[in-house]
């Protein structure tokens, strides 16, 4: 009997092997979306817990990594819905990896605020497509939707951000003059 069949039957040893094999991949996917290592670890644990709970629904010939990514994406999405935009902005700045000399701090804050103000579904699609540059097919699979729907979400996110950034720039210009 192979590993996935044993997992579907509830064998804890098989589950441990799968967790150890896929935890890096699942964590890497979640941290791309939530951009907070602590939260990403918690959500990775929650992902595997949910997978074990739903093991009877898993078909042994199925794609374990794809299934994990889908559950992980839903959890990340729920996290973004719960998170307040102001809080996330502070977190983002606190966890900043390297300062950028080109873009001014206020501009960066403006972009982050505008981005975190987007609906969670648009945030996830835009983060994965524009920031992380993941293929649309992969994003669609993780979100359980079509490539067309992902493209539409990215389009809507860009349009909203464009408007907000234009407004931010014009306000900035007025303040400077």
């Amino acid at each position, binding site marked *: 009997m192979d590993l996935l069949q044993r997992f579907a039957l509830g064998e804890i040893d098989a589950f441990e092997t799968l967790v*150890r094999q896929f935890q890096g991949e699942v*964590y890497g996917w979640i941290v*791309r979306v939530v951009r907070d290592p602590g939260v990403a670890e918690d959500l990775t*644990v929650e992902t595997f817990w*949910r997978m*074990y709970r*739903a093991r009877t629904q898993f078909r042994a010939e199925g794609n374990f990594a794809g299934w994990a990514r889908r559950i992980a994406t839903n959890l990340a999405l729920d996290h973004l819905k719960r998170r307040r935009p102001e809080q996330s902005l502070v977190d983002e700045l606190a966890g900043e990896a390297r300062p950028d000399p080109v873009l001014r701090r206020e501009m*960066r804050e403006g*972009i982050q605020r505008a981005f975190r103000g987007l609906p969670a579904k648009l945030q996830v699609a835009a983060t994965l497509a524009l920031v992380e540059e993941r293929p649309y097919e992969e994003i669609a699979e993780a979100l359980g939707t079509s490539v067309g729907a992902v493209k539409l979400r990215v389009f809507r996110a*860009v349009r909203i951000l464009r408007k907000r950034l234009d407004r931010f720039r014009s306000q900035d210009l007025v303040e400077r003059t």
Partner: protein
Amino acid sequence: MSEHDEREIREALKQAFPPINRELGRDLWPAVLRKLAARPARPTRVPWYDWALIGVSAGVLLFFPQLILVFAYHL
């Protein structure tokens, strides 16, 4: 909205959200195991109201067997 817009927003976002370390720093299996112990992961159960609905439906069909024909017609 043009391709230029998308490119500009993409660049702005990349600068606003610098690359994040994607490497997992520790083994999460012990945490998964603790969670399993704290909240045992039973396979999904049928909720009580579904059982109640099945019970009510079976009772109705038992007392009014002619309704089977009505259900069969609508199915």
